[in-house]
C-alpha cells in the first residue's frame, strides 16, 4: 500500500479520532456547563460520522433504488445499515441535549451561575 493510498483510506478515521479527542478535551477541561454540553455533542457527532465513513463504498451510489442499476450487485449502492443506525443515534443525541439543557436551566435558577468550581463551592 502506498502512502497516498494509506492517507486516502485512513485520513477520515484519524481526523475523526482527533474530533473525538477535542470533544473529550472540552468535557474535561472546560468549567462552564454549557461548554461541557458542547463538548458532549462534539463527541456524539464524531461517533456518528465514524459510522457514516464506514458505510462508504468507492464508486457506489446513494442507497435509493435506481431502476437503471437494478438490485443484483450490492457494490453499486452504499451500505444502508450504518445510515439507519446513525439516524437513531442522532435522535438520541438531540433528546439528551434537550434534557441536559433542562438541567442547566434548573441549576442556573437555583445558583445563578454555571461555573462548575463555584457551583461545587456553593453546594457544600
Amino acid at each position: 500500500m502506498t502512502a497516498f493510498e494509506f492517507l486516502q483510506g485512513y485520513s477520515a478515521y484519524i481526523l475523526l479520532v482527533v474530533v473525538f479527542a477535542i470533544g473529550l478535551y472540552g468535557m474535561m477541561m472546560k468549567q462552564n456547563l454549557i461548554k461541557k454540553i458542547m463538548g458532549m455533542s462534539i463527541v456524539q457527532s464524531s461517533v456518528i460520522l465514524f459510522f457514516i465513513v464506514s458505510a462508504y463504498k468507492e464508486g457506489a451510489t446513494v442507497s435509493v433504488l435506481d431502476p437503471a442499476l437494478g438490485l443484483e450487485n450490492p457494490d453499486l449502492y452504499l451500505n444502508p445499515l450504518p445510515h439507519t443506525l446513525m439516524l437513531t443515534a442522532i435522535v438520541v443525541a438531540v433528546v439528551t441535549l434537550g434534557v441536559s439543557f433542562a438541567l442547566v436551566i434548573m441549576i442556573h435558577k437555583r445558583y445563578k451561575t454555571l461555573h462548575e468550581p463555584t457551583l461545587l463551592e456553593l453546594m457544600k
Partner: protein
Amino acid sequence: MKAIRILALAAFSAVMMVAVVHLPPKGDPHSPANRVENVLKGPVAGAYYIQNSYPDAKTPNMVTVILADYRGFDTLGETVVVFAGGVACLYLLRRRTA
C-alpha cells in the same frame, strides 16, 4: 492535574489511532460489513438489505425500509427515547407544583 488529564487524553488518542489504522480502509467494497457473504458463509445484513428491500416492501428508499421494518424495534425504542425526553423536560421544568 491539568497536565495529567492532557497526557491521558493524548495517550487515549494515540491508542485509538493505532486501532483505527487496522480497520478496513474507507471505501473498500469488500470489507466485512459491505460484502455479500460473511466468513461463516451466511448473509451479511447490509448486502441483504440492498438486494431485498424493494421486493419485500415495494419501497425504493432502503434506509426507510430498514428503519421501519427490518429493524423496526430500534425505531420504536427511538420513539420511546423521544417520549422519555419530553416527559423528563416536562416534569423537571414545570413551574406549578400541583
